[in-house]
C-alpha cells in the first residue's frame, strides 16, 4: 500500500492526517482508509497546514540566521520527523462490499491512508441515461473513472452551473451537449448568446456523428441551418410576462388588442389602430417600446420592418412549431441569439418554452407524458429570469415557473450563472444538481455551499481553488459531492473524429 499519511486526530467533520514526507497532498485529494473486512472509508482533503515539533520562536530564529547568512549549514535534525504537513479531511463515503453509504463512524485511530485508485471507485456504476460530465479528480490528478449522471433525473430536476468567467463553463456545456447527442432522446433547447455551441467556424456539435439530431437556428444561417425568423402571429401577450415590463394601462391595451385582433394584434398596434378606452399616449408608448425593445416598426411606406430581421409578418410561420417538434423528437435545438438584445433573446426563449410547457402540461393531463422525451432548457446568465429582483419587479416568467413546477412535467432548466446569490433560495433548492466550477467571490461561494445537495461547508477553499475545467458535482442523485475534471472539448472529441464515417454510397442525381 502506498501510504501517504496517518490519521492522528480530529473528529467526524474534520479528520487530521499527518502527511508522509515526500508526499504532496493536495486540496481536494481523495484518500482511502482500509478497514477490517471489505470495508473502507473515502476522505477528501479540505485544508492543509504546516505543523512542527520545534517551537515557533526556534523556527523563526533558525530562519533568520539562514536568511542573514549566519548559518548556511544550519539545519534541523531529522527534519522529516520534526516538520510536516497536517491535512484536514472530511469523510465523504463509507464503502462496504461494493456499496456506498454516508459515513457515520470514524476510521480507526492511527490508521494509514492512501490515495484513492480507480479500483476503489467501482461502486460508481454507470447509471441509466448516462450523461458524461467528466472524470473523477483527486486534487489535480485525473483518475480513469468517468462520472455520469442520469440525464433523465438530472435534467428534469434542473441543473445549475455556477462559475465565474474563464473557469470552463462553456467547455462543460459543450461536453454535456455532445454527450446528450450520443444518448439521443432528450429535447434540449439551447439559447446561445455567444454562438459557440453549433461550431459555425470551428469544430463543435455540428461535427457530432449524430448531427442529424442537432437543429440550428440563426438570423445569419450558414448553409444547411435554419433562419431564425419568428412570425408576429406566433407571439401572444403572455409571452412578455416577466420578460418585458408593461404598465397596467399598457397591459390592458395589449390584452384588448389581442382580444380584438387575435393573431394580428402586434401589427395592428404598430399600425396605430385605436382601441376603446385606451389613451393615444398609451398606444404611442407601446409602439415605441416595440420599436426599442423588439426592433419592430412600420416604415414610411407602411411596410413592416424588423431591425434584427428576427420578426416577420410573412415568413417564419412554422418556426415555433418546427422547433417544438424537434424538441419532442428528442433533438437538440441551438438558437444563436448572439445578434439579439438580451430581452429579445429571453422573449424568443419564452415563446418556445411557454409553448412546450403548455403542451407538456396537456400531455400529463392526457397521461401521455411518459412517451415524451425530457426537455431541458439551457439558459446563460440565469438570474436575468430567475433573479429575485427580476421576479419581484416583473412577476414570474415561464422560466421561473419551470424552475418551480417543471419537474412535474419532465421539463428542466440547465441554468448557468456567475451570480448565484441573485437567485432566491426557493429556486436554488429546486435545482437539484449543481456542477460547481471555480469561483473567487466569497459571497457566491457561500451561497453555492448553502444550497448544495451535500454538506459543502468545509469546501470553501476547495471551490476557490478549482482550476479551469475542475468542478464538484453535488446532486441529490449522487452519494457524495464528486470532484471531477471535465476534459477539454477539442481533446474530448478527438476520439470521435477518428471514427470512420459511414459510407453513404454514391449519390445518383435524377
Amino acid at each position, binding site marked *: 500500500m502506498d501510504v501517504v499519511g496517518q490519521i492522528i486526530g480530529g473528529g467526524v467533520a474534520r479528520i487530521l492526517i499527518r502527511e508522509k514526507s515526500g508526499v504532496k497532498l493536495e486540496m481536494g485529494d481523495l484518500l482511502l482508509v482500509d478497514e477490517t473486512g471489505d470495508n473502507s472509508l473515502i476522505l477528501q482533503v479540505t485544508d492543509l497546514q504546516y505543523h512542527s515539533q520545534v517551537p515557533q520562536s526556534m523556527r523563526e530564529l533558525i530562519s533568520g540566521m539562514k536568511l542573514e547568512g549566519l548559518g548556511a549549514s544550519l539545519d534541523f535534525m531529522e527534519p522529516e520527523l520534526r516538520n510536516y504537513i497536517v491535512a484536514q479531511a472530511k469523510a465523504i463515503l463509507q464503502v462496504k462490499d461494493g456499496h456506498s453509504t454516508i459515513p457515520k463512524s470514524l476510521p480507526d485511530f492511527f490508521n494509514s491512508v492512501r490515495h484513492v485508485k480507480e479500483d476503489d471507485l467501482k461502486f460508481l456504476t454507470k447509471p441509466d441515461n448516462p450523461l458524461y460530465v467528466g472524470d473523477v479528480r483527486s486534487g489535480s490528478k485525473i483518475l480513469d473513472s468517468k462520472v455520469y449522471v442520469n440525464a433523465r433525473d438530472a435534467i428534469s430536476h434542473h441543473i445549475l452551473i455556477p462559475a465565474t468567467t474563464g473557469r470552463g463553463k462553456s467547455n462543460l456545456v459543450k461536453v454535456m451537449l455532445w454527450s446528450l447527442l450520443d444518448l439521443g432522446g432528450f429535447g434540449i433547447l439551447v439559447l446561445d448568446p455567444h454562438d459557440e455551441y453549433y461550431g459555425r467556424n470551428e469544430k463543435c456539435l455540428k461535427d457530432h456523428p449524430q448531427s442529424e439530431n442537432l437543429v440550428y437556428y440563426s438570423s445569419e444561417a450558414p448553409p444547411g*441551418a435554419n433562419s431564425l425568423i419568428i412570425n408576429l402571429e406566433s407571439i401572444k401577450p403572455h409571452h412578455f410576462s416577466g420578460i418585458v415590463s408593461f404598465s397596467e394601462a399598457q397591459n390592458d391595451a395589449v390584452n384588448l388588442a389581442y382580444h380584438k385582433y387575435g393573431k394580428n394584434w402586434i401589427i395592428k398596434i404598430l399600425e396605430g389602430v385605436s382601441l376603446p378606452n385606451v389613451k393615444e399616449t398609451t398606444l404611442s408608448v407601446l409602439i415605441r417600446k416595440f420599436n426599442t425593445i423588439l426592433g419592430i416598426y412600420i416604415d414610411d411606406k407602411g411596410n413592416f420592418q424588423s431591425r434584427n430581421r428576427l420578426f416577420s409578418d410573412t*415568413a417564419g*410561420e412554422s418556426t415555433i412549431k418546427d422547433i417544438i417538434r424537434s424538441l419532442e423528437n428528442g433533438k437538440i435545438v441551438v438558437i444563436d441569439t448572439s445578434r439579439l438584445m438580451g430581452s429579445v433573446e429571453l422573449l424568443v426563449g419564452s415563446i418556445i418554452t411557454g409553448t412546450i410547457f403548455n403542451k407538456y402540461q396537456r400531455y400529463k393531463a392526457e397521461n401521455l407524458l411518459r412517451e415524451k422525451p425530457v426537455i431541458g432548457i439551457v439558459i446563460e446568465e440565469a438570474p436575468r429570469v430567475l433573479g429575485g429582483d427580476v421576479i419581484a419587479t416583473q412577476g414570474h416568467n415561464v422560466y421561473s415557473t419551470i424552475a418551480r413546477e417543471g419537474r412535474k412535467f419532465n421539463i428542466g432548466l440547465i441554468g448557468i450563472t456567475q451570480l448565484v446569490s441573485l437567485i432566491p433560495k426557493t429556486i436554488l433548492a429546486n435545482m437539484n444538481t449543481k456542477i460547481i466550477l471555480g469561483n473567487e467571490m466569497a459571497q457566491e461561494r457561500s451561497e453555492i455551499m448553502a444550497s448544495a445537495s451535500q454538506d459543502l461547508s468545509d469546501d470553501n477553499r476547495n471551490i476557490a481553488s478549482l482550476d479551469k475545467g475542475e468542478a464538484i458535482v453535488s446532486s441529490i442523485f449522487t452519494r457524495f459531492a464528486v470532484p471531477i475534471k471535465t476534459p477539454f472539448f477539442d481533446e474530448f472529441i478527438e476520439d470521435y473524429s477518428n471514427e470512420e464515417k459511414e459510407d453513404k454510397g454514391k449519390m445518383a*442525381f*435524377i
Partner: protein
Amino acid sequence: MYKFAHLADCHIGAQKYPELKELEMNAFKKCMDRCMVEKVDFIVISGDLFHSNLPNMGAVKEAVEKMKEVRDQGIPIYLNYGSHDYSPNETSIIDLLNSAGLIQKIVEGEVKDEKLKLKFFQDPATGAKLCGISARKMGLESSYYDALDRESLQNEPGFKIFVFHSAITDFKPEFLAEMDSIPLSLFPRGFNYYAGGHVHLHSEHHPEGYGSLTYPGPLFGSYSKDMEISARGEERGFYLVNFQDEVKEIEFIPLPVCKYEYMYQDAYGKNAIQVQNDLMDRFEKIDVEKKVVLLKIRGELSGGKTSNIDSRTIKDILTRKGALYVGINRHGLTSREQVKVKITESDIPSIEKRLFTDRVGDLNISEAKLQKNNGIKLAVELLRTLREEQKLNEKKKDYEERMKNVAIHTLHLEEVFYEN
C-alpha cells in the same frame, strides 16, 4: 420586356369524380389559354403537372392536346418532377413528353467529388437561364440540396430562374409545419426568380440576398383539403412575371373554375338527430346552384352514432338543389356512445400519418430505415403508391407487376429483386 408564366401543382389525374375531373382539366386549359392570350415567352411548371408518374391516359390526352396548342404558338414549357410525378428510373409521363419534345425538363446535373453541379438550360428567345431540382418521394431531395454546388450557380451571369418542388422551412405555412422542408440557407443565392411548387397556397417572398420567390399553389387542387382551402377563400391561379435583366413585375392571376360553398357544422354537445336537423335548416337557406359544396362536421356528439348523420341523404338534398359536387369531411366527428378514437387531423393523409406515428413504437424493428420517422414516411408512401387503381385496359397481371415494381422502388429494394 419579356414575360413568363409560373404555375405548379396542376395534379392532372388526381380527381376521381367526373364533375371534379372536369374542373381540374378546365383549370389547366384556362391557364394555358391565358398564357397564350398573354403571349408569354415561356411557361415554368414547378412540379406535379400530373398527379402520378403514370396517370389516367384520358386526362393525359386532354392535357397533351392543350400543351401542343401552346407549343405550336412557339411557347416552350420548362418543368421539373414533383413529388407525385417523379420516377426514380426516369420512366414518368414527364419523361415521355420530354422525349416527344412537348415539354423540356430542366433538371440535369452531375455529382463530382460529392458536389452536385447543376446544368443551366437557356431559353432561346429571352436568354433566361433555368436550372432546378426535382422533388423525390418522402422529401429525399434534401440530399441534393446538401450537396449542391451553390457557388457555381451563384457565379453564373444572366437572368436566372431556379425551379424547385419543395417547401422552404422559412416560408412554410403554420398548418403545414409537419411537412418536410428545406431551409432557405441551402438554396443558391443571387437568382432573379425562384419558382416553387409543392406548397398548396400561393405566396410571394423577397428574402434578402435572394430574388423573388413564389409558390403559385395548385390550379385546382388534388385533395379535399385543397378544396376546403379554396372554399374558404384562397384564390387559385398562377403568376405572370415581366422581366428584362431583372424581375420587373409579378402578378398573381386568379383562375376561378367554379363557385364554392363552405359550411362548418359544430356537432359538440348535440345528438345526431339535432345535427342532422340543423343541417337541413341551413340547407334551406343557402344557394348551392352550380357550386362545389364542402361540408365539415366536427365535434363530439352527445348522443347517437355518427352514422346517424347520413352523408347519402345530405348529398342527395344538396345535389337536388343544384350542387355540382358535395364533399363531406367528418373525420373530426365522434360520439360519446362510440369508442373514442382521438382524431385531431382533418384530412386522410394526416390521419394515416398520425396512425402510423402512434403505432410505429409498438413494433420491434431492428432496421433503422424502418424505425421512427423513416418508417412512418415509408409506410405513408407505400400506402399512397399501393392505392393506385387498375387502369382501363390494363390486364390484372400487368397491374400486379406494376404495383410490385412500385412497391420495390418505394422500399428501395431494387438490389434484392433486380439482378442489375
